[in-house]
């Protein structure tokens, strides 16, 4: 639990009766180190520590009979607040196709996540259609087709075509068949690639997806805020899917992205197999980040 991790960080403070402002700042220094080593972005850490310090050196703590515990509680509460409320629902359209678009940097796990999401949605009694909108990566279409076959879920694809056209035709196809959810798998791209960011904006403008999810690798370091911020500013996304959490990365990117975009992390990828997708738990993530 977070309290256990924080008690580790604050072990120097425990058992101390009265605390001075400098004791508290030393303890918070340890929290700062823990967050930075967990890959939380340095600006996010600065703001967080400043905010917590203002509360922690206030009268409520200095005058308290268990000041160490008070500081721990403040850090705990502020971290949970920053991590945000749980928001894992996919708002499905009733009576029309729900269009979901997956975007993100190269190799973050979009194609695999598209398969996982389709499997989850199928288990909810809906009929998803996967769309191979990555025409750039060698064998990307084939990769999604293989996943579709494994799941017995249809994959819409076109050879020698363009993403906007493919997505439009896929929605037409979904309307004509009985598919009520359409998942667009897009090519990985850099947030600083103007042409490719424009392509995403075009897909959004023409197709008006109901949900856009930013798929991000959980081992991303300081750069997580740069890409997330830019994708959100240029395109706008409704939620984040954090992948490869079955590793031992602390996952500070989760806190950074949430702090900087305010968008919820909906799901986490916890393995390569297509059943390895879970709902995001903010308190578990906060605990993992604090190590």
């Amino acid at each position, binding site marked *: 639990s977070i309290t256990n991790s924080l008690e580790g960080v604050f072990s120097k403070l425990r058992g101390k009766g009265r605390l001075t402002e400098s004791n508290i700042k030393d303890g918070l220094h340890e929290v700062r180190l823990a967050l930075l080593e967990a890959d939380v972005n340095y600006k996010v850490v600065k703001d967080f520590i400043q905010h917590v310090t203002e509360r922690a050196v206030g009268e409520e703590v200095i005058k308290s009979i268990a000041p160490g515990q008070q500081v721990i509680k403040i850090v705990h509460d502020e971290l949970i607040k920053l991590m945000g409320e749980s928001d894992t629902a996919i708002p499905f359209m009733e009576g029309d196709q729900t269009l979901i678009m997956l975007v993100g*940097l190269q*190799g973050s796990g979009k194609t695999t996540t598209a398969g996982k999401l389709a499997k989850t949605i199928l288990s909810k009694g809906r009929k998803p259609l996967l769309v191979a909108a990555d025409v750039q990566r060698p064998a990307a279409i084939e990769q999604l087709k293989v996943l579709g076959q*494994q799941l017995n879920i249809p994959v819409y694809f076109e050879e020698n075509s363009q993403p906007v056209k493919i997505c439009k035709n896929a929605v037409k196809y979904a309307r004509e068949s009985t598919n009520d959810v359409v998942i667009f798998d897009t090519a990985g791209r850099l947030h*600083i690639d103007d042409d490719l960011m424009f392509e995403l904006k075009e897909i959004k403008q023409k197709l008006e997806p109901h949900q856009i999810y930013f798929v991000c690798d959980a081992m991303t370091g*300081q*750069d997580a805020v740069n*890409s997330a911020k830019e994708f959100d500013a240029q395109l706008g996304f409704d939620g984040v899917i954090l992948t*490869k959490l079955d*590793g031992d990365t602390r996952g500070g990117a989760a806190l950074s992205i949430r702090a900087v975009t305010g968008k919820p992390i909906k799901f986490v990828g916890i393995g390569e197999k297509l059943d390895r997708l879970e709902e995001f738990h903010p308190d578990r993530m906060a605990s993992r980040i604090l190590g």
Partner: protein
Amino acid sequence: FSFRRSIDESVLEELEDILIGADIGVKPVQRLIKKIKEAWKSKTLTETSQINDFIKGILKEDLQSWQIDIHYARKSPTVIMVVGVNGVGKTTAIAKLANFLIKDGKKVMVAAGDTFRAAATDQLEIWSKRIGAEIVKHQTGSDPAAVAYDALEASISRGIDVLIVDTAGRLHTHENLMNELSKIKRVISKKIPDAPHEVLLVLDATTGQNAISQAKVFKQAVDVTGIFLAKLDGTAKGGIVLGMRSEINIPVKFIGLGETADDIEKFNPDAFVNALFE
């Protein structure tokens, strides 16, 4: 009087932000800041305008010890094994490296050692056709060690100069997968005693502190000899390769700067360190 003043803390904080923001890691950065304060005290540094160059000098000096050249075999084929966690850019790095060697007049073969992931073999096959490399591949689900073995046999009989073996992405926390990787290496070594002559760990430049854990575990499993730092064309600086040196020292041999076969460069310490400050 300038000889009495202490160093401007806001300048140090700004530098700390740049270096931490580059993923060098808070403890290594603290050590660098300490060096600045000592140099200031001993008057080696006297102007704040000298601080950045002072740090660049330390970092560049530090990297001089890195052996960046490919370790070729005395007798062909040279065998290069490429490993790393999922999605970092291994298969693309292989295409780039193969292309690099082919343009240098070498006869190159690639082995489709990822027999697990959907369309992994198709992906490498498309690359091999584009760049003119030979390829050895098996069915999905076959033993990757068998692919490596067959590729070695084919390389020897066809007079291949360099064989590059692709492997499936795997998280270093999955012990059974790391054991599989060690087995592939053993099979290669049994066939050719000094092989693999190079084991390249591909790291994604956007990766944070977890790269240290990756490097340690992969080094333990297959004795990594070099790093291929991919995706340096993004905004991430890849500073973790410097930050990890106190815990594990593996030279970066190549960097990846994009998604085409030409987007590869040999590692250049000066350019890399300068870019941290841009």
